[in-house]
């Protein structure tokens, strides 16, 4: 039954988008983290989505769900601020903060939440269609 598989597909997307939201939350929480003793601060992370076959035997081209394949770290250098009195300052008096860009993260968050809503909507529609299908032939 194709309609039942919609729950798998939309469910995989909801789960992937919530993982993306998690990563955004982690990035925003660490936006002002300074470098530890090893000199490297928190690096902004980002999820990479990948199409995942929804297990239709013999039909690789059929509609598929989505999954998070990897989480990449942004390797650009962190923000450096001159603050010699900061306990985390290096020999030149600079403090290295994480390389999180809060504006990018907010945009990412909005995009993720819209996609999440879209897929919840898909599940709601599939649910009401299935319930109506169950009532076929009833007066």
């Amino acid at each position, binding site marked *: 039954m194709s309609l039942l598989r919609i729950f798998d597909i939309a469910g995989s997307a909801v789960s992937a988008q919530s993982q993306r939201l998690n990563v955004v939350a982690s990035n925003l929480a660490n936006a002002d983290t300074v470098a530890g003793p090893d000199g490297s601060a928190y690096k902004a992370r980002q999820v990479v989505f990948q199409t995942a076959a929804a297990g239709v035997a013999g039909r690789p081209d059929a509609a598929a769900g989505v999954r998070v394949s990897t989480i990449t770290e942004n390797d650009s250098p962190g923000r450096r601020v001159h603050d010699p009195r900061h306990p985390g300052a290096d020999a030149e008096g600079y403090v290295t903060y994480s390389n999180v860009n809060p504006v990018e993260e907010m945009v990412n968050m909005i995009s993720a939440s819209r996609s999440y809503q879209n897929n919840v909507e898909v599940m709601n529609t599939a649910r009401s269609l299935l319930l109506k299908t169950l009532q076929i*032939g009833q007066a």
Partner: protein
Amino acid sequence: MIAHLTASFDFHGQALMLRAERQRVIAGNLANADTPGYQARDFDFASALRAATGSAGAGIASDVMARNGRAAPELRYAVPSQTSLDGNTVDVDRERGTFADNAVKYESTLRFINGSVRTMLDAMKSHHQS
């Protein structure tokens, strides 16, 4: 006689299955709206229904259907209205529109089935009541 009675059910049943299949394909497109390199897919409902029910297109589709017991329309790739750098061709607005449209048509097919069930039941009952 019984075959004649159920013939219209068969047609609407095929239509319902194809509608559900299309709903699933569009759900897959919406799920992959943010996946890099994903290409949106869809199928032509009219020709898929013709292939599933008519004798003209009784080639691959009905063979597959006979094996799986369900319709297997030929999927095609959507032509992107706006290209994106990551190669994703899902147009979320268009897909949502198609999804809503397909849901309404699914429901109307359900009503056709319910209508013919009721008509048939009425035809069976009327003799006893008169």
